[in-house]
């Protein structure tokens, strides 16, 4: 039931945000004080802090929203609603996958996607979870043995953690939808259904262990929070990276040719901002997560 509620809430948020975005879009097309067209940048929630503190002033009109929301707007044939997209890596692929399935041209290729930061997916939880891989995590959560908080399954990060759990079941990221069977579906559903939805699970856990025992998170988010937490709040907690290790890769996507024009310094600025916040340099090495089409299918199982 909590899964249904979470999905309904997520859909509600997305629909509401789409309406909000439409209102913004209807009001765009302006220029900045230098007389140059304002560049529309959509940033995913995971990189909110880096985007909001770029300090580019009026050159950019920055909107921070969940990647799933931006993806919804880009997946339809009406045309790009943003110029540049700063987002976890699978999402451009998810957009193109959606577009191709709907009979439209893909929007992106390697030339339009630049990797600017990487951070390991992890779990902030009891130290004795060390050595528990994603399969073990899923087992314990599904059995009610471990109370876990995480983002809603339909959000960008929720989707990635879903992929990490599934990778734990199969022991590899190289699996396809035809590998899905009843046992897997039941296992994944019971685990995801038991996750308490929270927009800031790592913070919530550090506020009180009463909320849950562990939080699904990523290194750049949880490591600084854990380091800053008072001793009484952090005692007994560790930031762990279950096997198979998977990463959250952030990419800057040139949606509308803006990177060739007035925004060519944006990727390096974003990369620097992410580095300042504990992210590793961007990498196009495999992330350890399933392919975009498989991620879409995983979401469809819930």
């Amino acid at each position, binding site marked *: 039931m*909590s899964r249904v*509620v979470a999905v309904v809430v997520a859909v509600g948020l997305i629909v509401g945000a789409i309406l909000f975005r439409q209102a913004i879009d209807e009001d765009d097309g302006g220029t900045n004080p230098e007389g140059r067209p304002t560049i529309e940048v959509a940033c995913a929630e995971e990189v909110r802090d880096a985007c909001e503190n770029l300090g580019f002033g009026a050159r950019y009109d920055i909107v921070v929203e969940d990647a799933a929301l931006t993806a919804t707007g880009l997946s339809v044939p009406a045309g790009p609603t943003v110029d540049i997209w700063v987002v976890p890596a699978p999402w451009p692929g998810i957009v193109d996958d959606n577009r191709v399935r709907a009979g439209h041209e893909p929007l992106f290729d390697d030339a339009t996607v630049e990797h600017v930061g990487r951070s390991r997916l992890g779990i902030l939880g009891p130290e004795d979870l060390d050595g528990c891989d994603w399969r073990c995590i899923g087992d314990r959560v599904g059995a009610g043995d471990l109370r876990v908080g995480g983002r809603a399954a339909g959000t960008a990060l929720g989707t990635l953690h879903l992929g990490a759990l599934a990778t734990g079941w199969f022991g590899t990221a190289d699996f396809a939808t035809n590998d899905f069977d009843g046992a897997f579906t039941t296992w994944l559903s019971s685990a995801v259904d038991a996750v308490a939805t929270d927009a800031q699970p790592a913070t919530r856990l550090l506020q009180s262990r009463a909320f849950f025992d562990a939080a699904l998170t990523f290194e750049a988010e949880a490591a600084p929070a854990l380091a800053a937490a008072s001793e009484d709040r952090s005692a007994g907690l560790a930031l762990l990276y279950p096997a198979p290790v998977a990463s959250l890769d952030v990419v800057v996507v040139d949606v509308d040719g803006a990177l060739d024009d007035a925004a060519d310094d944006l990727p390096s600025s974003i990369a620097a901002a992410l580095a300042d916040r504990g992210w590793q340099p961007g990498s196009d090495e495999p992330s350890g997560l399933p392919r975009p089409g498989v991620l879409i299918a995983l979401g469809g199982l819930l």
Partner: protein
Amino acid sequence: MRRLLTLLLPLVLLTSACAEFPENEAPGTDTDVLGDPGDCEVIDVAVSSEKIALLQDLAASFNDSHEAEIDDECVFVRPYSKSSGGTATALSVGWNDEADGERPEVWSPASSAWGSIVNQRLADRGLDPIAPPSEPFMLTPLVIAMPKPMADALGYPETPIGFADILDLARDPAGWGAHGHPEWGPFRLGKTNPNFSTSGLSALIAQYYAATGKTSDLSLEDLADSEVDDFARGIESTVVHYGDITPTFLNNLYRNDARGASLTYVSAVAVEEVSVISYNAGNPDGVLSPGEEPRPPRVPLVAVYPEEGTLFSDNPYIVLDAEWVSERQRQGAERFGEFIQEPENQERVLEFGFRPGNPSVAIEAPIVVANGVNPDEPRKTLEVPAPEVMVSALERWGEQRKPAKVMLLIDVSGSMGDFATDDGRTKLDLAKQAAIDALPLFKDEDEVALRIFSTDLSAVEPFDYVDLVPFGEIGAQRELIASRIRSLVPTQGTPLYTATRDSYRLLQDEYEADRINAIVLLSDGQNEDPRNSDLQSVLNELASANEGQSSRPVRLFPIAYGDGADLGVLRQLAEATNAAAYDASDPASITKVFTAVISNF
């Protein structure tokens, strides 16, 4: 000068934020301590009462800092106290400046559940949400506060106690006798009205969870289950009386404690952890009145952290997504939101007994075992239900709550004919309208009577009061009572003591154990009765009837109406019955106050 104000403010707040009951202040009346905003753009912040002193303290610091300057212009953050439920209602139905006070740009209810309720109620009307998800800036868990000897008798903390255990105790006819203490009488449960109080709302949710045996996924189907309904009605039947806010209970408990009788007033009451800390420090309502010094009670309270889990009051800071919030106000509000999360300001949160939302600040004194609380608890939380489930729970509570038997005792002395507004309406005009507006708040099964009083109102005995409508279920006589109220006119003097005493005797004679028995007394003057000026004998009679295990408690809730009312005497009368007096010295506040009073039933 503003620096001086900052230094003085904590002292000023402690002495000025002492309205009769913190959640009853008229909006705006408690903001003067912040000074004049001058040319700065004001950002009004509606906050729940328990944190008004803290928020005004922080606002004073913020307003005095460079953080309050945006593009060479300034903003001025102005928190004022308004109950979470009251603000939720006003935002849901459309804000009325006259009745509701300044329309806020920011809202900090005690729990984010209220934001969900507002959004759900707006959605039910086809309107957009205005309370976006927001981060908490401090937390305090719902606990079951019990006098320490009672918690000891139940074996706490070695023996875990849950909501289900408390509810079983409350329904056990053997009462405390089943635990070796018959001298404590029945198990008495205190609850606040969930439409106004966050503790009440959280306790209601916990009660439903206890009824279903669940800790998450409470559903509409669960609420509609007949066994759950029976369980809820059974629990409500054990309630001493409802309160609009928890300080009502804690003040009464503290007064009883002073004379060694705290164990016979209430056995357990659902409150926030911060309230236990304040009570044990000798400051039961969390606000020190002028001249009051905190004195620890003889019998301290213990915070019982329910075994099944509990809910947190998470105190979100919500910048409203509403058309009346300007861009500058939004920027200023976000600045203030960041300001209150800074570690040095979160230290101040801790000083007030709340758990800081910023994890970099340790949870330490005053949240320590010596103060009756445990920083290592709670271990589990109950899931906050979906918004539509909470709205439904509130609607069902209106039917399940303990029925009441209430006499409306209204002063129609000559002074009620004084003008109260610029448009020529008298105090009586305003009171009549407020009383009529409050009638729908009673449920149909409540028995309500209407009695008016003034000297020599009748040519035959009793001379000083007249029963206009006798007791009967209000569902059958709501319009009759309203029509009688409409016809009231001001007459003579104020026979306050006789009217109160005789009405009290009537309720004692006609006492019904399965109802909350109470009098709502509205008076604007002092006792003017040559036949009875003996206050002490009235107080003695009221107090004696409320004591002992076999007492027939009748609660007297006076409303001190207008600046001529004898608030001191009315407070004594209320306290003699373990009830509460309400201050409506500003006649314009009478509608709000009447609503608050009726929330006790």
